[in-house]
């Protein structure tokens, strides 16, 4: 078996900005003193005249991005998810969301896999926050290939987009040559009849691995990658609900307000089936190596297998 290549989605984000900039002169990038970490530095090095550091002032950065968008630019405003979605929430809501401006928010260091920096920087609430803003598109790519494709799609789409990237290098499982990304379209990675695992972000790869283990134990699990959490692909979820009757959601985000909530809301209204949410429970994280934290918080294939077996036993 070939060695698994691991790349953090934030790396792919920086690469994509650099690549797209060559063909899109409207593209400008803003950062809030985190260019080295968000990887917008890749763009900055090639296009310094289109890169603007706002300093440690995320609220202002979001407003500046709004003004740029209102004047015909396609601005990417970057910071850690905690500050982009958290600190600047109300500016994103009122200065970007309400006027529906063409601003792209590149939020990196999302989730518990921030690791050693600990709870203050582990943003498990950003999807929940962004979901409440009317017209906001939310994309949470599962690997580097998807991340790059998502950035390209966000540039082509007119309107506000929140892109969520991770700090941790994670396995590349999509094939760049054949991969197709469409905003709002979930991707079925494996068919199954007993249960469906709906995952997003770095949990997608864990879900695929978990499905293999479940298969060996006689449970046929369908796996769906929901890269776009809003607008969510209702069709693929409702079809899975009808055909498998049980859904497990897996995300590196709070179980409150994220993918799990979005999926539960979707099925509750149109095809009620049990939904078991795997994610960060209603608690804060803490410092530690990312890989260890993911295991500790149950954001791993082993926990998906355990929770799925439990659910199958309980509901099927």
């Amino acid at each position: 078996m070939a060695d698994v290549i691991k790349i953090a989605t934030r790396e792919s984000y920086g690469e994509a900005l650099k690549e797209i900039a060559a063909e899109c002169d409207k593209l400008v990038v803003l950062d809030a003193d985190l260019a080295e970490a968000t990887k917008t530095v890749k763009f900055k090095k090639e296009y310094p005249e289109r890169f603007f550091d706002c300093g440690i002032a995320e609220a202002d950065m979001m407003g500046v991005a709004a003004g740029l968008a209102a004047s015909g630019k396609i601005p990417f405003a970057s910071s850690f998810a905690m500050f982009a979605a958290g600190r600047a929430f109300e500016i994103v809501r009122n200065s970007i969301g309400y006027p529906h401006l063409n601003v792209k928010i590149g939020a990196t260091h999302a989730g518990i896999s921030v690791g050693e920096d600990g709870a203050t920087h582990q943003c498990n609430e950003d999807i929940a926050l962004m979901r409440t803003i009317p017209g906001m598109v939310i994309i949470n790519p599962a690997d580097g290939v998807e991340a790059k494709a998502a950035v390209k799609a966000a540039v082509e789409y007119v309107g506000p987009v929140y892109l969520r990237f991770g700090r941790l290098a994670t396995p590349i499982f999509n094939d760049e040559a054949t991969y197709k990304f469409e905003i709002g379209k979930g991707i079925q990675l494996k068919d199954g009849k007993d249960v469906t695992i709906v995952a997003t972000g770095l949990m997608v790869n864990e879900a695929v691995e978990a499905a293999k283990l479940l298969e060996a134990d006689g449970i046929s699990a369908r796996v769906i990658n929901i890269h776009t959490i809003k607008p969510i692909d209702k069709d693929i979820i409702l079809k899975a609900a009808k055909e498998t009757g049980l859904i497990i959601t897996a995300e590196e985000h709070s179980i409150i307000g994220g993918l799990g909530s979005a999926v539960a809301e979707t099925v509750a209204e149109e095809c009620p089936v049990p939904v078991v949410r795997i994610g960060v429970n209603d608690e804060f994280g803490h410092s530690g190596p990312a890989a260890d934290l993911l295991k500790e918080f149950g954001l791993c294939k082993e926990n998906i297998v355990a929770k799925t077996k439990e659910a199958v036993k309980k509901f099927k």
Partner: protein
Amino acid sequence: MDSTIKKQLEMTAVNVRMGIIEGTFNAKSGHPGGSLSIADLLTYLYSVKMNVNPADPDMKERDRLVLSKGHTAPALYSVLAEKGFFPKEELKSLRHIGALLQGHPCIHIPGVDMSSGSLGQGISVACGMALAGKIDNADYKVYTILGDGECEEGQVWEAAMFAAHYQLDNLVAIVDNNGLQIDGKITEVCSPEPITDKFAAFGWHVITMDAHDFDSIEKAFDEAEKISGKPVAIIQKSVKGKGVSFMEDKVSWHGTAPNKEQYDQAMAELSARLEELKK
């Protein structure tokens, strides 16, 4: 300033004030005090200074204005109606269900360059517009109007830092220094003063002007025009409620609409002023 032009501006400003009273009276809510204090400023900007076209509100090369103190939308709407961006009749349905004119500025209204109202945000957006102008080597100017109380918002100073750092000399921020905010005098609530010194310390060129004297207004904007390499802050010394005797310098008129009797009195005063100017 040429006396004929000055008289014309003064008459327009009275009409703008009547529009503010009309709007807030019909809305039975809104913010007449701070609207009246920027009536002369907006009249000057839209009559003399700004390159805008009511027939093409989104004209690329237009000058932009972001009303950071968005609660004073009645003043902006009244000026835009005066200018012909939409019929004056619209002022009568301000804040009503289904109306064009929302309680706070909305980007979808002809002539309104940005939605605003949550204080502290407009100046950042104006910075973004000015930065876009710099990137494109465009000639347009960006104006933003802030309240003095609004200067208590931290984001104002983030934006002030940004504008100076990027040498946005195509940006003019006007602070409406009427000295009052909802809870009382700005110096008693949680003082943002000295506002002039603060903008100067942030690297802005600072000018003060009398908000209700067109000669002073013209002088300030002429000076602003000459500044390069720095953003300009104009601190306008104004009177909240200016032009309606019983509203002047009264904090209670920050966010209260006139009733029928008060509406009649305000309109009578403004009509009398207009007649006086016509002489």
